[in-house]
């Protein structure tokens, strides 16, 4: 198999380049893209990428695989390689630290901005804050996000305004707390999102939905936020 890998070490290289590797894959097995990277790293230890759990839970190995963002550890080579060629690039739109490792600072800054934690100004109950099964159900499809950044770095609005547009990942979490029956800061949260950039840069092209490795739907969450903003203001 031919693997074309994005190589860039800002300390040494003037500009990024693609390096080709010829790799013999074990027969009769459909490896994951991460397995291919591990084999490559044995051949060339200078290759850099992030990985941890290798089972789609930690969200470390988000990368651009043959033009589509995804998690290397849960993407079978057979599903992405075209004409026996695998092309691996870092997540688009973020500064490259080295090879496939990107600087996710802007991504985390946006996540921080939406205050991704429960805010409740009522006295703390003796045991816990209860929710009905129906209230809890509203958080399904929201809390599962692992912050791999595949969605936000696949979003043109996030590419052009990563400092102003919260991005699909951040907005999915924003809605996760707006929808939480135990959260009492709904109004303050909405007030922070009403400007022309934070939410409304979303043009609904659903690139986020197309690539989410967890099958989540940030566009729908953004739609819910818009409805809540509209209800609040009218």
């Amino acid at each position, binding site marked *: 198999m031919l693997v074309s890998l994005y190589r860039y070490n800002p300390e040494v290289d003037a500009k990024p380049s693609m390096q080709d590797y010829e790799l013999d894959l074990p027969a009769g097995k459909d490896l994951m893209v991460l397995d291919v990277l591990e084999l490559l790293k044995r051949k060339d230890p200078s290759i850099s990428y992030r990985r941890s759990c290798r089972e789609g839970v930690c969200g470390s190995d988000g990368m651009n695989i043959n033009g589509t963002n995804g998690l290397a550890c849960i993407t079978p080579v057979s599903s992405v390689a075209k004409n026996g060629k695998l092309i691996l690039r870092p997540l688009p739109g973020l500064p490259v630290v080295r090879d496939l490792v990107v600087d996710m600072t802007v991504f985390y800054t946006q996540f921080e901005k939406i205050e991704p934690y429960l805010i409740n100004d009522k006295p703390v109950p003796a045991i816990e804050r209860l929710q009905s099964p129906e209230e809890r159900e509203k958080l399904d499809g929201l809390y599962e996000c692992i912050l791999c950044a595949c969605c936000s770095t696949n979003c043109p609005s996030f590419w052009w305004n990563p400092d102003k547009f919260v991005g699909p990942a951040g907005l999915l979490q924003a809605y996760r707390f707006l929808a939480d029956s135990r959260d009492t800061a709904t109004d303050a949260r909405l007030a922070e999102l009403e*400007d022309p950039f934070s939410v*409304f840069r979303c043009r609904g092209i659903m690139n986020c939905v197309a690539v989410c490795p967890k099958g989540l739907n940030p566009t729908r969450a953004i739609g819910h936020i818009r409805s809540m903003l509209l209800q609040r203001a009218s």
Partner: protein
Amino acid sequence: MVTNVTSFGRSGLYDWVMQRITAVVLGVYFIALFTYLLLNPDLDYQQWHALFSTTWVRIASLAALLSICAHAWVGLWTISTDYLTTYLLGPKATVLRLLFQAGSVVLMFIYLVWGIQILWGM
């Protein structure tokens, strides 16, 4: 909250609602106009002139004209803040963006006044 003084209503929600309302106005107006053209294949100048002499058509046309201006402003403002940014082009982008926005506004204002003149001057 990200603030910006040049957007249409200085609120993302307001701009978004305006863009949708104006889209409905434009949709209804042009569908009605195209239907009229389809139903009148042998349309001549007198008939067209008579159509635009009725007050209702003039009101609807003015609503469509105003809607185009508001709709285009939100759209062009969005384009300018997507592509003409310091993030992409460096410090010179601010001047470039403001020039583009000013140009858009002037052009839209000219079209608006000109449109009203045509509509009500006939």
